[in-house]
């Protein structure tokens, strides 16, 4: 960055000192997640070899679940205890409700939400027919506005997060597997650039906290790898559901930066890129974090 030439040589002794404290990528909790759900136990992969595109950067990827404390982790082991499950039920009610301009429901065209099994694991993705980068929210919005004669739901509304929760649950236990090549490549590259850019007055990139220093404590927070396989997340602190992009807003704001807006081209690209860092982890359905 600044003053490269000045610092490098002269401060060799200082840098050696600092090297002693170099990030250790310490201690995700050693634990395994099997979720007791309505249809029996589902095994969740919370640790996997890093995908190829992270070779030389990370060896192993971990779900954020592995960085939470005992109490928070316990809440996700059984749907009965998971406070996010009520929103799945609410999403199901919405799914079946005749809300369309002509009384259509999601169900009248799609049948049950099981129709979307696997979709959560591969989004964001570039839609084959339109060539547009689509998040799950974009798909839902397209049906609302183009097929049901409705206004868009606010991107961070409870209607939207309830529906995200319902659809995400259909892929619980499936491995995240978003495409990064072909038509996705330019979006992925853009997301990657954002991930490594040091924004705001604190000059911090996603990578500083979630790649360089994951496993460390930043005050009371145990830094995870900032993976999105758990989204939507029930956040105890907010007592509500959070979409990935809503989480991004908070993380960028905390660097004293101007955030990007949910559904901005920047955050969509970032969501694709961050998802790809989690290729191989399981979709958790609705996770619990604090």
């Amino acid at each position: 960055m600044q003053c490269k030439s000045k610092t490098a040589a002269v401060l060799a002794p200082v840098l050696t000192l600092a090297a002693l404290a170099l990030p250790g990528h310490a201690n995700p909790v050693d634990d395994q997640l099997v979720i007791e759900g309505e249809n029996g136990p589902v095994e969740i992969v919370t640790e996997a070899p890093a995908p190829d595109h992270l070779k030389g950067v990370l060896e192993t990827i971990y779900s954020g679940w592995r960085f939470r404390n005992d109490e928070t982790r316990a809440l996700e082991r059984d749907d009965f205890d998971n406070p996010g499950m009520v929103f799945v039920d609410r999403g199901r009610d919405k799914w079946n409700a005749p809300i369309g301009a002509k009384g259509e429901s999601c169900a009248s065209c799609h049948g049950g939400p099981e129709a979307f099994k696997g979709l959560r694991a591969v989004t964001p993705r570039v839609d084959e027919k339109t060539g547009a980068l689509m998040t799950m929210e974009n798909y839902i919005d397209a049906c609302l506005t183009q097929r049901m004669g409705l206004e868009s739901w606010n991107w961070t509304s409870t209607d939207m997060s309830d529906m995200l929760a319902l659809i995400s649950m259909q892929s619980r236990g499936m491995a995240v597997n978003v495409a990064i090549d072909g038509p996705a490549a330019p979006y992925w590259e853009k997301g990657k650039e954002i991930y490594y850019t040091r924004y705001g007055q604190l000059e911090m990139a996603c990578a500083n906290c979630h790649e360089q220093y994951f496993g460390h404590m930043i005050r009371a927070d145990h830094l995870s790898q900032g993976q999105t396989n758990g989204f939507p997340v029930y956040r105890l602190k907010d007592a509500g559901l959070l979409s990935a992009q809503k989480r991004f807003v908070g993380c960028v704001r905390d660097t004293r930066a101007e955030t990007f807006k949910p559904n901005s081209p920047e955050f969509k690209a970032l969501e694709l890129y961050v998802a790809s860092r989690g290729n191989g982890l399981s979709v958790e359905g609705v996770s619990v974090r604090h």
Partner: protein
Amino acid sequence: MTRRLTLAVAVALAAAGPALSETLPEAVQFERGAVAASLTGMPGDPEAGVKVMTTNALGNCVACHLVSALPDVPFPGDIGPALDGAASRYSEAQLRGIIANSKHTFEGSFMPAFYKTEGYIRPGNAYTGKAATEPLPPILTAAQIEDVLAFVLTLKD
């Protein structure tokens, strides 16, 4: 660059009266990362320094550093090295430089630059997430830097 010009302005301002004797962020002279002269021309207050170091929206040093001399601080972070004994490892000038803008000492450091006003990417208005126009007020004032320094100077082995 415009460095010399800014300096000249700062010197002229400084000459104008005691209230302006502060060294402005853009006029701070880093020598191998160190800053020899007090930013205020006065010694800082170590007690006020502790306040700055433990307040979230100010220095928040404890988010990343353990300070054993401050045992009442809950949940100190472990991102950077413990500051215990820092004053035995570094001179006053080096510490002033590290606190003002550590990136002159540790290239690319994760530690924020506390006495800097521009050159940011998408700077925000504090923690609102809204845009702000540079130059921003530095995160810490000259007096707050000197206060923090005064406390860190007490951290000897």
